[in-house]
């Protein structure tokens, strides 16, 4: 019973095996990909392992505090930063091995030519909160 973040990057990760940008796929391939993701989330819900899944817009803005009484400083939006997070899925599973297995399945989503993309996903465990700590 631990939560893991399955993180999908646009950039900053090693190249996928089937590394063709989505806009070069056929419309049917795009639909098949989206359906795969949708089915994957539904299946995780039916196994009682789904927590959350979100996609993010490509463009983001950097923001920081700029002192008392001043508006925050912004920079960007940057379409071309080094690393870009495309989206994530959060799962609640019994083991690390299960999280890896699920990430592997997610990475098999079909892309160009209907073949699996084999894209690299990052698996990060959540830190727990308020657990009874042994002494």
């Amino acid at each position, binding site marked *: *019973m631990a939560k893991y973040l399955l993180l999908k990057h646009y950039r900053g990760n090693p190249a996928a095996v089937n590394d063709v940008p989505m806009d070069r796929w056929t419309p049917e391939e795009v639909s098949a990909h989206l359906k795969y993701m949708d089915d994957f989330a539904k299946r995780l819900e039916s196994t*009682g*392992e*789904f927590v959350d899944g979100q996609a993010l817009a490509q463009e983001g803005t950097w923001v920081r505090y700029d002192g008392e009484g001043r508006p925050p400083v912004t920079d960007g939006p940057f379409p071309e930063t080094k690393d870009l997070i495309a989206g994530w899925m959060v799962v*609640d599973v019994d083991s690390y091995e299960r999280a890896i297995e699920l990430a592997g399945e997610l990475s098999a989503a079909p892309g160009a030519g209907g073949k699996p993309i084999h894209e690299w996903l990052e698996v990060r465990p959540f830190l727990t*909160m308020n*657990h*009874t700590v042994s002494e």
Partner: protein
Amino acid sequence: MVDEVLLRRLTPGVIGVLVRRGADFASAEDAVQDALVEAVRVWPDDPPRDPRGWLVTVAWRRFLDATRSDVARRRREDLLGEEPPPGPAATADDTLQLYFLCAHPSLSPSSAVALTLRAVGGLTTRQIARAYLVPEATMAQRISRAKRTVAGVRLDQPGDVATVLRVLYLVFNEGYSGDVDLAAEAIRLTRQLASVVDHPEVAGLLALMLLHHARRAARTTPEGRLVPLAEQDRSRWDTGAIAEGVAVLQAALARDRLGEFQAQAAVAALHADARTAEETDWVQVVEWYDELVRLTGNPVARLNRAVAVGHADGPRAGLAALAELDPSLPRHTAVSAYLHERDGDLEQAARLYAEAARRASDVAERDHLTRQAARLNSRHRPAAEPG
């Protein structure tokens, strides 16, 4: 207000009655959940004289309603009749069998926990979902899958107490989030289990939970900061819970069938017994960890033993004990940092605390270790001016 604790306490017995009248477990459990929701709605204005009888009647009616649409309707009605004679009173055995079923070895730990909290604990799916920070739909699926998994298990089969204890211990360790105090709930369920089965390890686990829970108020500051055992304000320990835990443990130990929970509880009792950290009987703590290692071979027990050796025989002896253990063990680095600090090697301790913080799997523990590293690193310079 409805007495929710009463409702939760009555839940397993009511399921037991339905099952003995011929309902299958999954349908009985659903029907009782419906009856609990109905009770929360109706009881404030119209409290029943006999809460348990009320729940049985309503749950049974729900069960019949649900099965009416089934193809098996006629067969069931012939078999059971619309208004069956009141079934035999729920027995301790019913409750025990439910514990076994919900902790059945065919279930994954998370499924066993969820099913136990619902069918034995009488919690709603929403409460369980909130406590484990997952969507309600996910928790509902987890529970119905668990019920399908155990659908073929007969309720009169003897079960394994050890698997039940592992599930209850998991619930206890989850601590506290959402509107249900899972640690308190685990204690209630373990106490109830102890009332229906005579087993020294059930008593051992109950004692362990009571002794740990007794220190909870002192274990964190109001802001959620972790307070190490040695620095806890012992006047904030719950002496009533400690006295009960010690009594339960002594009765269990007297039966001379030692198990891992009794040994862990014995360590907790030694800590609870010390009026100050300095008075802790570390030699005895080491002896109990020796027992625990002998019983389980558990590497975490060996790690805790190294800490105790560090107190009983000095930090060098603790570090020597630690050197025999796999450095990749969780909290190995934190223990190493602690023992190095006690040994006076503050530079090394600071470095190890920082590394342990990076490896921590819990937020409060990570923050505590970061603070320890910061404390040692800042010992030569005055505190930085804020802002």
